[in-house]
């Protein structure tokens, strides 16, 4: 096995395209999973079980089926029902939805960790329910869960190669295409492997800096 630097430089233009798609998928997937997860958590606290029950069933279902299966389903079954989205949009939706069922549990733990005295003080001050959530409870809860949410971002990053199966050309997709065209596998796969390590590492550094700022 020989290492060919020319193959590396030939692959780089494709690599940058793939990197962009990977980062897009992670960023948009994170945003979706953070917001959807919060929605699930709040719905699970609804006073009526007619809300809690369906939300519980759906999220439990999504959490306990593989992301890969969900990707196939969304990409190949939805169009049969007349719903067609781009491959990337479908991928972002699948990742965001899947991870929202994890982030909802993170939020729940964060909300439950806010001391009862905070609710009581808000009641004693007669703060409206919505204001209690947005000004008192959620700011404290979210601060607590930033590390856990950050770990899911890194986890999402490592799940993005799955998007390849629904034709999204992210890093692995481009590496695979390049390999098949040039019969050179080592270089492109090594490049994206190194890229995954670097991005994960940078993300964890960023996360630790953010944690330090929030804990203060």
């Amino acid at each position, binding site marked *: 096995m020989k290492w060919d630097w020319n193959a590396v430089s030939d692959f780089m233009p494709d690599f940058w395209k793939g990197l962009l798609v990977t980062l897009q998928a992670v960023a948009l997937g994170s945003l979706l999973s953070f917001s959807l997860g919060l929605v699930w958590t709040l719905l699970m606290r609804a006073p009526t079980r007619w809300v809690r029950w369906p939300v519980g069933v759906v999220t439990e279902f999504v959490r306990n089926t593989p992301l890969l299966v969900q990707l196939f389903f969304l990409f190949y079954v939805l169009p049969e029902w007349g719903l067609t989205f781009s491959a990337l949009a479908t991928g972002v939706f699948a990742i965001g939805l899947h991870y929202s069922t994890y982030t909802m549990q993170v939020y729940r733990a964060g909300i439950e960790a806010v001391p009862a005295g905070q609710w009581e003080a808000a009641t*004693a001050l007669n703060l409206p329910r919505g204001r209690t959530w947005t*000004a*008192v409870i959620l700011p404290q809860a979210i601060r607590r869960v930033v590390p856990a949410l950050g770990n899911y971002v890194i986890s999402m990053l490592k799940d993005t190669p799955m998007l390849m199966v629904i034709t999204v050309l992210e890093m692995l997709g481009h590496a695979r295409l390049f390999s098949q065209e040039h019969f050179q596998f080592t270089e492109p796969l090594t490049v994206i492997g190194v890229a995954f390590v670097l991005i994960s590492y940078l993300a964890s550094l960023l996360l630790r800096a953010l944690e330090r700022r929030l804990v203060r």
Partner: protein
Amino acid sequence: MSADTPLMKEPDASTGTALAGGELIRLEGVTKRFGTNTVLDDLNFSVEPGKHVTLIGPSGSGKTTILRLLMTLAKPDEGTITVDGQRLFPAPEKQVREVRKKIGMVFQQFNLFPNMSVLRNITEAPVRVLGLPKDEAEARARELLDLVGLADKCDAKPTRLSGGQQQRVAIARALAMRPQVLLLDEVTSALDPELVAGVLDLLRDIARSTDITMLCVTHEMGFARDISDQVLMFDAGRVIESGSPEKIFGDPEQERTREFISAVL
């Protein structure tokens, strides 16, 4: 409302002056259970406006529960609670909010909002609940911080303050809502001994200089003697004796009260 007779079911539980100024707070037949444990047992008493009433008694005798019921942090299993003529349980949410506006509470654990500055802890509710303009609320908050001796801590986060300072901010926060009634729930129990005096002095000042009605659960008997118009002695969910501080601390009728007082003094 329910029964309109001013008579109390337990003659012990009210002072002889009950008819003079009307009642601000009234509890009738209030019972509260936690599981099989009855923490308040058919309780009846009333408080006149402007009076300072201290609740004493052993731990677990139900004193704090009364404050929590008044603040609507818990619900009684039986009985009625009336504040300023308005019933609290059961009552529509709107009425509960109206009643809550009249009541402020200071907690044992301060319960300041750690995500807000000291100033915003105090202005949040006046702005959001009373609809005060922000600058007016801030001006008032600064006055109150001045009153509690923390004028220089406006922008600090509560967690940067000592326990005594936090509790003084909590008092300012409660006062900012201009309550008619202030509920004080063992407000010095969580403080280092050296910080207790400062908080008690502040409360003495407030008791002297305002006409706020105070309901105070405390183990600080000296403080209770100083500020109280009436002292209620609790045991096992009942008021077993009530009267002026002179009487309760000097010459109580009940053996149980005598025992308790001599144990804590």
